[in-house]
């Protein structure tokens, strides 16, 4: 059995979270932004599972199921909005979606 320290899991989780967060801020394609958002949720999931394993409580593992469910609902609604928007505007690049202004 290979033993991996808690800190290694946490480092992976923080790196994934940071990647997702930066991706949301700098990427221009809505689908890629969406993937980055999912990456953030997955990063939190890794942290939950790692903590759950090392602390010996089950709550974190159970929480993961709720996160998965919520993420699925979010994706379903999000992709529907993106498809409807693409039909109207023929683009999903965020820098071209600027019709809302003063």
């Amino acid at each position, binding site marked *: 059995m290979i033993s991996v320290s808690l800190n290694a899991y946490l480092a992976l989780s923080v790196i994934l979270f940071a990647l997702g967060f930066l991706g949301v801020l700098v990427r221009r394609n809505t689908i890629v*932004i*969406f993937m980055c958002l999912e990456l953030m949720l997955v990063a939190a999931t890794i*942290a939950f599972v790692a903590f759950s394993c090392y602390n010996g409580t089950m709550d974190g593992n159970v929480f993961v199921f709720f996160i998965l469910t919520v993420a699925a609902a*979010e994706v379903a609604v999000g992709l529907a*909005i993106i498809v*409807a928007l693409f039909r109207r505007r023929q683009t999903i690049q965020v820098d071209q979606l600027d019709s809302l202004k*003063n």
Partner: protein
Amino acid sequence: MTTDLLQQAAASNQWAAIFPELSLGCLALLLLGLEMVLPKDNQRQIPLVALVGQAGILVGLLINFYTATLDTETFNSLLRHTHQGQVMRVFFLVASLLVTMLGMISLPKQKVPRVEFYHIVLVISAAMMLLAQSNHFVMLFVALETVTVGFYILVSYFRTSPFSLEAGLKYLVMGALSSGLLLFGIALLYGVAGNPALPGHTAEPMGFSGLHSFLATGANAHHFLAASGVLLVLAGIAFKIGAFPFQIWIPDVYQGAPTPVTAFLAVGSKAAGFAVLFNLLQVFSPCSWLLVPVITVMAAATILFGNFAALTQHNVKRLLGLSGVSHAGFLLLGVVASVTVPMAVGAVHFYLFAYLLASFAVFGVMAHVAGANDADQELDHYAGLAKTNPFLAAVLVIGLGSLAGIPPLAGFMGKLFIFVAAFKAGHYGLLGVAIVGVVVSIYYYFGWIKAAFFETPTASGDECQASRPQISVGLVARVVLTLLAMATVVLGFYQGPLGVWVALR
């Protein structure tokens, strides 16, 4: 797990305690069922069913206000029923009633399915009511996400309008980002509070009481992971209430969203954020060395940004959005004060009720004035409203006056209570910023009133007026708007029962 433990868990499931939420859910399903079985001609009665059903639930909730489950924890400590929680339940029910009413005005102007709108409004209200009573991070997260995902749909509800869809996408990205921050914060808190190497570690790191006792032990409140977790959770909540620096989404989303949804976002979603913030502030109270300075800076920046950004707006929905940001700042002032002065909690709740009455009065007028393009509501469209429709103009003046905090309206008393609480707590600098904010806000609110009363429609305005059908105010809307305006005036003179009721702890 032994059967004893399961039986114990089942015994704490007191379904009667969440009766209002359950009935809201059933009512929501009933609406969808009615749409299937009713013939097409009778389907316009469905919103009325929603309205009457919600009024019935509200009456039931008020009659059973002091239930046996008050100040107890149910559902294995997932929920905790407090007086403040009950007050917020009433608040969310009143808000969803009024949103249903606004929907009955706004939706017929568009070609969209109607019934699903009311369905989602009911589901969101039920989730917000659970959110205000949650006592466990799993409950908090699931309820919050039910609210947020519901709002994604509502914001992009006018799916033939590119504005509504764009607003929906922006809200989706920002909302999901804030959920991610919140979730990561919860993960850190869960990890650190359950860590067997730390003193005071708990077997229930997700429960609020377990987490509180962990943070209160030794130097745990200064632990790096705990502090980061607390800050990330705070950031997630700040997104929902639209506090600086997480307010960027507000103007665009408020402009693009259908008017009833804008009202729901401005009042319901914001109040839900504050209800959660109050609960969490009690849990995080050992961390107040960190939270008080952060929220103080946040409140000052929120008040200043909201008011100064609103000065240049011509679109009334953006204007109300940014003024809503400044209201969130005033409420944050009350939240900071509540750490040391308990009366501030009551002050914040009174402010929320005053804000609800005034906002829905203004949004009710907006829903009437709006044309076919819901995102296009400029100040110019209000030119000459006092002549064409004196009733709407009068309601608008009372609503805006209350939002601006003009005595003797309810909004003034709300601000006064919060300022008194802040003075008692000794936040003099923040109080100065808030007073500057109030003075600035009077300018843009009065610009709107000026447009309605003293400006005549210009040439381009005339074309707009010509293309707009005559504004007709239905009987229900007229009664509701009159009630809102009257309540705003009466609460300014006499706060008595409501003031005592919201201040009880």
